[in-house]
């Protein structure tokens, strides 16, 4: 049996605001089929304690809705630590959470952001049709990408 390192997927959003729930919907769709070394977390927003959380993982994926249009319906980005200069700490971006993990806990997991395009962010339960299509595309991409990463990781 392959001995994968611990991997975390964090879905960010609010399912009460239509396509803002894309991060949660992503986890809902994939979590049943994930290997045992994967953990999933749902978040309304990232906060400073998430730096402590991600410090326990080798690889972390942040999944969030995106307001920008992308041709394939999503964007995949490696995430680098970066200090925020925000005065508000109600919510942090993934780069800042990674920055804090590095500086407070001396840990820097390999981290990626998957932003999935949504079009409706009003008070409503359920994803728009466009968001549903983009979600499926993103999941397909993610599965391929993660499988490739595993192979890379063990070779």
């Amino acid at each position, binding site marked *: 049996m392959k001995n994968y390192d611990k991997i975390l997927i964090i879905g960010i959003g609010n399912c009460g605001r239509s396509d803002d729930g894309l991060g949660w919907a992503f986890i809902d769709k994939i979590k049943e089929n994930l290997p045992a070394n994967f953990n999933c977390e749902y978040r*309304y927003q990232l906060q*400073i*304690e998430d*730096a*402590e959380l991600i410090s326990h993982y080798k690889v972390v994926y942040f999944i969030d809705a995106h307001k920008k249009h992308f041709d394939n319906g999503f964007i995949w980005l490696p995430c680098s630590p970066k*200090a925020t200069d925000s005065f*508000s700490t*109600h*919510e942090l971006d993934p780069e800042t959470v990674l920055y804090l993990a590095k*500086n407070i806990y001396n840990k820097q997991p390999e981290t990626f952001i998957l932003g999935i395009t949504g079009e409706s962010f009003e008070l409503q339960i359920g994803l728009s049709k466009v968001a549903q299509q983009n979600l499926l595309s993103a999941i397909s991409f993610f599965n391929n990408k993660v499988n490739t990463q595993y192979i890379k990781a063990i070779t």
Partner: protein
Amino acid sequence: MTQKLVIDPVTRVEGHGKVTVHLDEHNKVKDAFFHIVEFRGFERFIQGHPYWEAPVLVQRLCGICPVSHHLAAAKAIDQIVGLEPRDLSLPAQKIRKLLHFGQIFQSHALHFFYLASPDLLFGYDANPIKRNVVAVAMEYPALAKKGILMRKFGQEIIKLVAGKRIHGISTTPGGVHKKITAKERNYFLDGKDIPSIDTMIDWSVEILEFIKEYHQKNKSFLNTFAAYPSGHLGLVKKENGFLELYDGNLRAIDAMRNITLDDIPNDDYADYFYESVEKWSYLKFPYLKHLGKKKGWNRVGPLARMNVCDGIETPLAEKERQEFMAMTDGKINNMTMHTHWARLIEILYCAEMMKALLEDDDVLSNDLLRKGERRSEGIGIIEAPRGTLIHHYEVDDKDRITRCNLIVSTTHNNEPMNRAVRWVANNVLNGKPKITEGMMNQIEVAIRAYDPCLSCATHALGQMPMQMQLIDRYGNIIDEKLR
């Protein structure tokens, strides 16, 4: 020319508010207001829903203190199914209290470490870019680690009892729907996976030492800043007047410590409270009817609770309370900035109470539910982190809610926060030729001491620019700052 300074939104509080300071042509303060500009409508749209949905629905009022709304509503719904708080099984009472103490512990930790500490550690005139918890984490990593783990501990307690950290469900009419297992409670006791409850107590004592030392160094500021005489309101234990957060009598005192509300049972609250409205804020202004609007308003929250109670049942917190009260020779404490100190005494109290409850085998029991005779009305009052929280429901014979009245903690503190803003406006801004960011921040500091919860669940996350505008009497923006 009359000028108006606007701070919109106020930052590092839960939710959105706006401050306007009205100046005349000589920069003299004419008046100052703290506006609450969010509108919720929970009291109205819960009508028509079956009563058992209330504890689940109303906790959506907030993403920081949903547990408080969940429990206040649950107590009210218990009455509708014919049960007083004492009628619930002991295990159910204890599990609910464990949830409540976990909530207050994590909320107070959030406020002190994340929201208040940047002001204390970096100073009120520090660069606003630095005045946040990320900077605290970078420059005081040991303190930040403790703050993170203390908040996490409280959240894990909530998750244990309610299933998840935000908007979980624990209560059911007449009790709770889940017991705690021995394995689950050991997670909090043995210190193997997370720091143990004993460590939480140790760290709570440490942070109290920090605030006492800080007070020694900054006494003149902390003792005078935004201080003003006021009434104080809170729950106290029915049997001895001690600090009570879950189920007690309502007690209020005036600025001279005269009793103005003499240990009133929860069910009688409506005979004593009234709420007025002002056209410039969505937040109401509660006051004691018999004292009138001018004299009947009260502070609520940690400072008020320290002032109204006769003692604390846990030894370490009681020792700290005595030291706190000795500072004013046992007289009432109206020093707004001491609210931070009082909040930390409550952190210690909650930690001690969580330890006692976790070590109590009653929480492992299956005896979780009671039944009573159906009534048409229920009232639930608890002490939320920010103060006295009142839920009141009436239902029809088809189990539908027909009336709902909520007086939330921050509503009680509406007049006190406005007083604090006026104090800063008059004492810090008045007559100054230029308004600096540090001076503006002091208005926020005064508000922040109350840890107001202005309904954080509704704001647009990540879209909170700090905007300051200077506006003349004709509505022209003559100065503007963004950060």
